[in-house]
């Protein structure tokens, strides 16, 4: 167990370093970052002064080392546009996005796990077919279109919910649905497939042969084993959702990390973009690490090795 965790941790650190290197080199995609920053009307001198000011004249590896060293201490530099420390701005916006992501995840799981279980208990039944249809339709719906449609119906036509902003809980309902529905099909299919597989396992027959109540068989013996892959999926998808929140936050004008990312891209605010990509990537790495640890802890075959 301990060596497994150590190995897993080592891989996570290595991945994080690689991601940081990729993120860092992103600024060179547009060619010379100093030229990009200076704007079209800049003179040769302006560009040169920007280059030395931001340290773009040093060797790339030195720049990377410097950037990484500072980033590890929580210093991502100054925002070119907001003229504020990048870390501070991100720290302000992060809770909103986390909140949105969590609400979306809860919405998705609350919908998908019971549906998946019901579908697996009676394969090919009406419930199974309905769930499957919902999954197929959900997977094909563009998220921004779904968000706009929700906005149109729930916000404008029925006037149930506020359409933009992030001040009260009601602001989070539509964005959470719009963000969460996208992972519902995958979570539902995984629950269904896992349950189907587990329900045909020999130990389920053993449990039934003991005369256990169907509820006990289903929840204690089956769901416990079928849910393990769903936990991994939930962690992975939570990470994806934070990345995908850029679309939803832009639509609903929610003042989170995604909206910040979109603004920063519009303003060519390179340090801010780098930091957001890195923060979200590292967060994803932590999430999968956590999911693996949780899985190891829940699965005695790994825990008690």
């Amino acid at each position, binding site marked *: 167990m301990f060596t497994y965790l150590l190995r897993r941790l080592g891989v996570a650190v290595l991945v994080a370093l690689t991601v940081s290197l990729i993120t860092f080199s992103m600024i060179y995609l547009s060619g010379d970052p100093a030229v990009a920053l200076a704007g079209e009307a800049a003179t040769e001198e302006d560009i040169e002064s920007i280059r030395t000011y931001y340290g773009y004249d040093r060797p790339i590896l030195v720049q990377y080392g410097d950037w990484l060293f500072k980033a590890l201490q929580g210093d991502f530099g100054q925002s070119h546009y907001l003229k504020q420390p990048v870390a501070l701005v991100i720290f302000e916006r992060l809770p909103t996005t986390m909140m949105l992501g969590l609400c979306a995840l809860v919405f998705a799981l609350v919908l998908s796990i019971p549906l998946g279980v019901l579908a697996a208990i009676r394969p090919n039944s009406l419930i199974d077919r309905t769930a499957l249809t919902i999954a197929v339709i959900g997977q094909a719906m563009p998220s921004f279109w779904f968000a706009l449609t929700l906005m149109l119906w729930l916000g404008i036509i029925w006037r149930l919910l506020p359409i933009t902003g992030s001040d009260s809980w009601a602001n989070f309902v539509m964005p959470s649905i719009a963000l969460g529905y996208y992972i519902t099909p995958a979570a539902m299919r995984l629950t269904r497939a896992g349950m189907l597989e587990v329900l045909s396992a*020999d130990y389920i027959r*053993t449990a039934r*042969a*003991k*005369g256990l109540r169907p509820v006990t068989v289903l929840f204690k*013996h089956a769901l*416990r*084993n079928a849910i393990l892959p769903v936990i991994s999926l939930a962690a992975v998808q939570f990470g994806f959702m934070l990345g995908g929140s850029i679309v939803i936050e832009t639509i609903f004008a929610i003042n989170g990390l995604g909206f910040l990312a979109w603004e920063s891209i519009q303003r060519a605010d390179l340090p801010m973009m780098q930091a957001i990509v890195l923060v979200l990537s590292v967060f994803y790495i932590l999430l999968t690490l956590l999911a693996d640890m949780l899985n190891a802890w829940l699965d*005695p075959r790994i825990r008690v090795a």
Partner: protein
Amino acid sequence: MASERILEVEGLSVAIPTPSGMLHPVQNVGFHVDRGETVAIVGESGCGKSLTSLAIMDLLPLRATRSADRLVLDNTDMLRIGERQMSDIRGNRMSMIFQEPMTSLNPAYTIGDQLTEGPRRHGQSGMSEARDRAVWLLEKVGITAAANRLRQYPHQLSGGLRQRVMIAMALMCGPDLIIADEPTTALDVTIQAQILHLLAELQREFHTGLILITHDLGVVARVADRVAVMYAGQIVEEGSAHRIFTTPSHPYTRGLLDCIPIPGKTARGSHLGSIPGIVPSLIGEMPGCHFAERCRHATGRCTSRPVDLGDGLEPDHRVRCVFSPEELQP
């Protein structure tokens, strides 16, 4: 002590719909088990013996349907009770041991948890009492350091140990009847004999009925009181173990017995028998004797009409063949 009937089965059939037609893996099977008696059901794989046991437990796959004329467990008519009452019987008055010890235990829970589940469900005892019985039974089935084992998970035990746990689990509620479905097939040859002896011993000690399902005739010869031979979904011969092994009547039974070497009887270097042909498909209706295609004695009347399970050489002996048992003796 007079024999006491534990289980009576009559006209038990199982049907499973498949894309190419209705499959009839179990057809009109009937037998009975007395208290303290071991009845062996033998036959090659696919002859319907496992489905027979699952049908008795009412644990058939969802798609399969069961029908029977009579299915009585010690005064309880199992055809007339609902799933709820049936689950009260399962694991309590009638328990089952499965073929695959490696996969028959839930990997997520400890041995102790899974052993004590039965008694707690059936309201027989509280947690501590159930634990005591679990420890006692684990020792009975030959597991050392039983109290510590309760905290272990299935993956920490070998296949042989797991099957011992399964046997202990079957005994937790003190059932009247145990059904063991190929309990030794998945185990190493060296362990097979141990497990079998254990089963026979416990069966004597607890005086339960035991249905032993196997394709291994060597196993049957050692422990069974009575034997039912199944072929292609039907019982083709039924009688005391002594009768079946000394004077087998049905051509299929005789073929089966020719396939195993008997110390002292089979000459060194001589060929063991084999039965030519393959088991027929059980999809759709099949008039006449199922074995006719592979039988040396087959004549036209074998396949023209259904063959009943007729009287054999003694009261408890029955044979499904158009020839009389006397005609069939070599």
